[in-house]
């Protein structure tokens, strides 16, 4: 399935201008926020969920821009990656409901597991930073350990005690001394003035040396944890375990994960902008969104519309009243995920899908047990079904 370049890729698809998909942005309010494509809202139209229609555009071609939307049918799904770097990814998701997009965003922030330091055993801490404050700072240091290689700690069973499959051990040992070779009052007075995250040293336990391809270490070695002066020392043993962001933000794998709706700027053909105001009009939007030709003709650059920040500046000026409508497309989500820690940014979204599917599976199992229970009348007195420990 090779992507075929489509000539009209400089324009948004026609379905983007369907008014049913628009959220109106006005000076002091936002209108039409709720989605309306469910059965019953439009009489005579069929909006029931249809997987085949949902997938159709996907199978044809991912770069395909102008797909047909039949009256009252399910909007086609389209996922397109726009930018990728070593630390962040920006991609579009079109055709899903806001609740689903929000679910993925929340899972990315709170439920994709990571490994971070949780237990700090202090042998010696004569620095000015208190034990608990230093331990808190150390816990927030992101590590590059792949969470798939470790197990969660549990309350019972094999993983209720620390072992080489659920704990990664680091040692931190920094002593500050005076630099006898430096001139008095000059730079470099002290050796080991800063306790940095790079001072964390991995101690392989058990079979860990063969499991990890890359030595576990903090992703950024320049994070300052404490400052020392001569005679002060920090010596501690650190245990890192697997957890999720829901429990503590240190286990969140993303710097942040957010989405915004694709903006839409619609010019009113009945009220064109006068030539001498063209540049002022263009200045009301983010650079590159509005093109002014040499004669002063205004046009909106459709592919650059996504860069607009929808600041509604144009609504502040009375000379542009009625000339333009600001909208957003309700089911076009522009995700921006910044990764922090072990996952490469392109791997984060599939991880969140995996977590979502495991939640669905666990609920489905309980619902099916309930169904089987009612069939055989073997349910407990009030019809409750115990869901297993999540």
């Amino acid at each position: 399935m090779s992507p075929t370049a489509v000539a009209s890729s400089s324009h948004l698809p026609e379905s983007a201008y369907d008014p049913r998909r628009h959220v109106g942005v006005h000076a002091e309010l936002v209108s039409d926020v709720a989605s309306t494509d469910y059965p019953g809202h439009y009489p005579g139209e069929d909006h029931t969920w249809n997987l085949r229609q949902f997938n159709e555009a996907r199978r044809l071609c991912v770069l395909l821009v102008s797909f047909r939307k039949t009256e009252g049918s399910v909007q086609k799904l389209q996922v397109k990656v726009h930018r990728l770097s070593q630390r962040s990814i920006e991609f579009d998701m079109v055709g899903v409901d806001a609740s689903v997009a929000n679910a993925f965003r929340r899972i990315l922030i709170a439920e994709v597991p990571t490994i971070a330091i949780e237990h700090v055993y202090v042998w010696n801490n004569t620095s000015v930073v208190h034990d608990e404050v230093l331990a808190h700072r150390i816990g927030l240091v992101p590590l590059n350990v792949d969470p798939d290689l470790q197990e969660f700690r549990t309350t019972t069973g094999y993983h209720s005690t620390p072992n080489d499959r659920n704990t990664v051990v680091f040692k931190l040992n920094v002593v500050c001394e005076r630099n006898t070779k430096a001139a008095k009052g000059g730079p470099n007075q002290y050796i080991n003035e800063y306790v940095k995250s790079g001072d964390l040293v991995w101690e392989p336990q058990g079979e860990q040396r063969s499991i990890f391809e890359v030595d576990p270490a903090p992703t950024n070695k320049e994070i300052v944890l404490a400052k020392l002066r001569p005679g002060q020392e920090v010596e501690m043993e650190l245990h890192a375990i697997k957890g999720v962001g829901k429990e503590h933000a240190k286990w969140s794998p993303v710097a942040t994960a957010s989405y915004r709706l694709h903006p839409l700027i619609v010019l009113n053909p009945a009220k064109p902008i006068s030539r001498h105001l063209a540049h002022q009009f263009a200045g009301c939007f983010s650079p590159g969104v509005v093109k002014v030709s040499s004669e002063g003709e205004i046009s909106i650059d459709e592919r650059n519309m996504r860069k607009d920040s929808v600041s509604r500046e144009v609504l502040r000026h009375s000379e542009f009243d009625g000339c333009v409508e600001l909208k957003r497309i309700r089911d076009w989500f522009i995700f921006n995920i910044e990764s922090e820690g072990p996952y490469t940014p392109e791997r984060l979204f599939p991880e969140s899908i995996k977590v979502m599917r495991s939640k669905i599976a666990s609920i489905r199992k309980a619902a099916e047990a309930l169904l089987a229970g009612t069939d055989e009348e073997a349910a407990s007195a009030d019809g409750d079904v115990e869901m297993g420990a999540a």
Partner: protein
Amino acid sequence: MIMKNPKVEFCGYSGYRHLLFYLARRSVPHPSENHINIRIQMYDNLSSLDCLLTALSNLDDLCLSIGEAYKTSLTQDEYEKWDEKS
């Protein structure tokens, strides 16, 4: 574990051919606890448990489709690759 799809009306993502949902409502007793109460009411004496199961399987298919579309786009699309200094 909470199902992370708090859709007040299920109708968008599941539903039989002829509009057989009446009402679905959900509420979270307390945000710190992992509990959701869902109420589903059906027309025509249909089984609401079946409806819940269908809804869950549709949601699963949805996640699969999104995952595949994402993977396809990642491997086949041309997108801007840039170097971000940290």
